[in-house]
Every structure is written in structure tokens, then in C-alpha cells.
């Protein structure tokens, strides 16, 4: 069990972890122009769902951490954003935060999101086992059968947790 009051919780397909990004610098796409590669690589790029990720192409091989904010549980733009980032070749971590819940975890993983950042409240209301169970439902995937590349291709070893 995780026992820390300070940090948020991160859940990936394997279960709960402490948020290891909370000490990293956070910046938005507007900050990118003035950013050196080192800061870019060590910080977290925070995107909101309306971002045109195609404009980020020059930075995609520098960045190591992208956080996509979901406005609410009904707003699926973040899924498309993650797909677009993967399509553009971004291969490092993507996490989702905000209005995303356990019944959308399957969708997040299949769109190339590696983990979801939870508030304490959300983590206590949606226990770890529910997330782990939801992750197993990615196995039955019509789109993969039909020839689409699965975006949840990243293996555990790649995850920087």
C-alpha cells in the first residue's frame, strides 16, 4: 500500500505507484520556445485537450514526459491527442490527469496513454484492483484485429516508473 500524503498517485496497467513526476518542472507549449533541451528532457509538458500537437513536432524527440489534462469524463479529446502524439512518433511517457476514471482506463491504454494521475479522493473511490482489472480488458480489440497498429504497444520495461 502506498502511504504518502504529499504526492498524487499514478496508476498504470500494473497498479498504483507514487507520482514520481511531482518534483519535475512543469511547462506548457508556450514555454517550449524559450526552453533548453536539458530542461525539456527533465520536465513535464502539460497539454490541455485543445492543443494542436502537430505544432510540437520539433520537440518530440527531446521530451520525456507529457501530461494530458482531461476536462471531464465526457470529453474524449485527450484520447485523440494521445493517438496523434504516438502517430507523430513520440515514444516516451504520456499520462492523463483530470476528469478520467477507471472505466476509461481501457480507452486510455489503447490510445497510447501509459498511466493516469489520480487525486487521493479518486484513488480511494476507485481501488487499485478495479484499474488492474480494467487494464486486462484491452486484450479484446476489434481495431487491432482489423489491421490497425495498437497504440498500447509499450512494454513494461520501457515504462519509466
Amino acid at each position, binding site marked *: 500500500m502506498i502511504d504518502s500524503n504529499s504526492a498524487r498517485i499514478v496508476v498504470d496497467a500494473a497498479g498504483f505507484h507514487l507520482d514520481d513526476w511531482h518534483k519535475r518542472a512543469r511547462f506548457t507549449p508556450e514555454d517550449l520556445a524559450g526552453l533548453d533541451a536539458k530542461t525539456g528532457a527533465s520536465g513535464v509538458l502539460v497539454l490541455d485537450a485543445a492543443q494542436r500537437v502537430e505544432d510540437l513536432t520539433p520537440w518530440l524527440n527531446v521530451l520525456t514526459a507529457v501530461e494530458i489534462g482531461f476536462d*471531464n469524463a465526457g470529453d474524449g479529446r485527450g484520447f485523440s491527442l494521445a493517438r496523434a502524439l504516438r502517430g507523430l512518433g513520440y515514444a516516451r511517457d504520456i499520462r492523463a490527469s483530470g476528469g478520467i476514471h477507471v*472505466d476509461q482506463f481501457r480507452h*486510455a491504454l489503447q490510445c497510447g496513454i501509459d498511466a493516469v494521475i489520480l487525486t487521493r479522493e479518486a484513488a480511494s473511490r476507485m481501488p487499485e484492483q478495479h484499474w488492474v482489472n480494467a487494464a486486462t480488458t484491452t486484450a*479484446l480489440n*476489434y481495431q487491432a484485429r482489423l*489491421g490497425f497498429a495498437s497504440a498500447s504497444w509499450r512494454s513494461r520495461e520501457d515504462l519509466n516508473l
Partner: protein
Amino acid sequence: MYRYNQFDTEYVRQRVAIFREQVARRIAGVLTEDEFKPLRLQNGVYLQLHAYMLRVAIPYGTLNARQMRALAMIAECWDRGYGHFTTRQNIQFNWIRLDDVGDILEALADVEMHAIQTSGNCVRNVTADHFAGAAKDEIEDPRMTAELLRQYSTGHAEFAFLPRKFKIAVTGAAHDRAVTAFHDIGINIVRKEGVVGYRIVIGGGLGRTPIIGTELVEFLPKADLLPYLEAVLHVYNRYGRRDNKYKARIKILVQELGIETLRAEIDAYFTATRDAFAGVPDAMLGAIEAAFQPPEMPPEMDVAEAYDLRHDAALSPALAAWMETNLEEHRDGRHAIVSISLKAPGATPGDASAEQMRVIADLAERYAYDEIRISHEQNVILPHVPKAHIAAVFRALDAAGLASANIGQLSDIIACPGMDYCALATARSIPIAQEIATRFTALKMERDIGALKIKISGCINACGHHHVGHIGILGLDRAGVENYQITLGGDGTEDAALGARTGPGFSAEALIPAIETILDTYLHGRKNRDETFLAFYRRVGMAPFKRALYPPTNRARHESAA
């Protein structure tokens, strides 16, 4: 007919299990109503005016007898003994309990059916020409494409939380019976220089903002269909409006961005992602193609080659009348397409009792190669009936109250559930449909009028498709009083047109006389019996109807009443 493979079966069973568990978590309070709502919607569960409603998908309107019997069983076990076939080739059960849904979904899964994505902001049940595989004017059976799209859209992770619902219809014939011009995406199977491909139409729709779809691609190679649709949905998901649900459909995005800009966005994403798509494996395409081959006709059918239906007609005037309206020519001369009307005058359009469902199932099994279709016009179709069996089919239908001879005529009305069931409705629509059907069939005017589509919506969301009715009726609430607007000249086919308003609306009492005035104007003005209502309207326009509906002497009185 397409049969589930092991994957389909596992998928549907898994969805049932997941939904059962979600319902349990909602009841335990773990899921909030906001979180639960999209989940129940994507499993077909609505909260209606009086009770929960379950909407079951009938993909591309195709059923077999076993499935129809399962629907009958569900109607009896968990509802009030009937079901309601909808304008999107679904069936709705209007009186179910939330805690029974898991069991109902399980019963559906037993017969390879489901309620997945029949509502919610996702890709909905894909519809197709209800004469698919039987129509004479068909390039290719559209159900092959529709089944491919069913698989593609089912559980698509990226598109489960779109700005709004997304409806796709497919037609493979020159005559568009699938209303493709009024869908978010309409797919027309076309042939160009001997090659079969798709013409893609985008941004059509009815509802508050009726719009005829715009051509997005003139000819799309078949192999590109899925990655291209993926690009359409991707662009829509990112840029479709989410600030106002009435402006969230893709038709508004088409209007606001303009077709050129939108096409450029879609093409850019398509070009960038096309190579990551490996193509649908041949084995899967082959299985789908094999599933939609024409039924195997027994060898004795050869004898029926010369069967002449006129002999049957001569023996029974009732049968002759029914054959005139409810039979359609089949591509195979030994067969006919039979439409079973769910529009008995005075009944609720689209309703079928469990008993009637069983009668239809028995007939399909006994005479019609076990194939049944549901049309968007809320009727049932037996697509392949040997002509030698037509008279027997008619007699059985007649005994079950299913032999209304009115397909495509005045009393074959599309009506939304209206204020009797729907929480959104502002006026009644089913009672209006019943009144119109009863009145004009009693006057024996129906035959004389001939081809006529009347469509009724009980609010501006237009579920009754009134914009594309030859006569459209829209029920509104005016300061607590029902008021009905009439539109004329709408058409949902390849000659797509939106109906035009006659003028001020009518009270419930004045509505039927107004319809009578419209029909009289047509009957007295038409060149001859071959000039249909729609053809007449296109020739003469609105003016003669306006004059008849709003004569100068009555105008002041009418306006003070409105």
C-alpha cells in the same frame, strides 16, 4: 447471414460482464451519475419519461428467426409484451428495470445480439438499405461494408467520447433507401471504370439544424475505407464543438470550418497514418463476404420460374391489394420482397407484439430462408420469398393482424415516440399518426392518393424525420398548447430535399382538416394518377397549398388563434 466468430462472442460476453459490474458499482455509489451515464448509454440504457428503456441493435437491420424469437421472449419476460422498432433499425423495450438489464443483455448475447453503442456520444449502430441482397438495382450488398464498420466501430477506444453521436448509413443501390444524405457519414457504393469503391458524404442530419450532406470524397478505394473514416472521426473528436450539444454534430463542424478546410485536415491525418494501417486481413474480409451471399435456393425452385402471381391475385381482392403495395420486385424473378407493415391504422407505428414477432419468425423460417429485415421506416421485411409462397405468407400475416396493405402510402407513417414516452417531446406524435391513419383510411382516400410519406416528430430534435417527409409534421409547445407545423416536399432519397414550411402552425384540432386540405389540393390539381404527391409539389410549388390552407377570409381568424 453473418454469424459470430469466437472473438465476437467473447467480446459481447465480456461487455455484458463489465456492464453488470458497472451497474453494481453505480448502485453501491462508487460511480457518480455523471461517470455512469455515458457507460449506461453506450450499453443502450436510457432513462425515459416513465422508466428505463433498452435499445437493442439490429446491425444493418438483419435478423434471423431465432433472434426474432429472443426479442419476443425479452418483450414477454422483462417488458410489457411488445417491442418498438425504430427509425435506425433498432428495437426498443420501453418498460424495463435497470437491475434486469444484465440478464437481458445475456439473453441477447445467447443469440448473437447486443445493445452496444445504441446510444451515447459514439459511433452508433450502422444502418443499411433494408432491401440489401435482394434489390434489383444493387452494385454490392452494403451489409458487407456495414459489418466491417460494425467491427471497426465497436469499442473503438479513441471514439467512445465524441462531441456527440455519430451515425453512419450505407447503400449499395442507385435508389437510396438508407437516407444516406442525412447521416453524419453516408456511404454510397459506386462503380467507377469497373472498380467498386465508395462515395463519401459528410455532415448531413435532421434534428434542429436539418442539413443535406456534402460530398467529401467522390471515389474512395475500398481498402482505404477504415483508415479514412478513422481520420474523419479523429478530426471530429478533436475539433467538433463541445460547448453546446446542439452544435456538436459533425454537420456543424462542416458548416463552420467549410468543407475544403475540413477535407484538408482529414486528408493530412489520413496521409500521416495510412501506412500504419496494415489492411484488413484477407481471411476476415473473406468471412464477411461469405456471410452475405444470397441464400441457397432449393433445386425445386427451378419449377417456380414461371410462377405467375396474377393467378393468386385473381382469387382474392385482399391479397391483390396487399400485393400491390407490399411486394417489391426481387433481383431473382422467382422471388419477391415482402414488406410487413407495422402500421395498422390506429396502432402505434413500429410496435410489434411478442406474438407477432413469433409469427414473423415462423414465416421467415418456413418460407423465406430464415432472413428478416427491419427497415428505417419501422416495418419488417422478408427479403427473399418464393412467389409460390406469397399467398400462404399473406394468409398467415392476415391472421396475425400484420397484413395492412399500406407500404409507402398515407398510413405508413413514421412517428417518434412523442410526449407519451419521451422526456424531450413537446407534443404528441403517435396519437396524431393514429388519427391521420384512421381518418383517411376510413375515407378510402389512401389508394387514390398513392405514394406518400408522412413523418411526424414530437419536438425539434426530429426523431420522426419530419424534414424528409413528403408531408412533415412537427409538434411544438406554444405557451402550453400543442401546435403543429407542417412542411411539404421533403425527400430522404437520392433526390434529397428538406421540406418547406407551409406557414403558421395548427392546433391539434385544426391539424387533421389541414392535412385533408393538402390532400384535396393534390387530388384536384394532379395531372393524373401517375403524378405522385411529391412530383405534384415539385411541379406546382407551395403556392396552391398556401392558398388552400390560409384563405384570406380565414387568415385573420387563424392568426389570432395561433
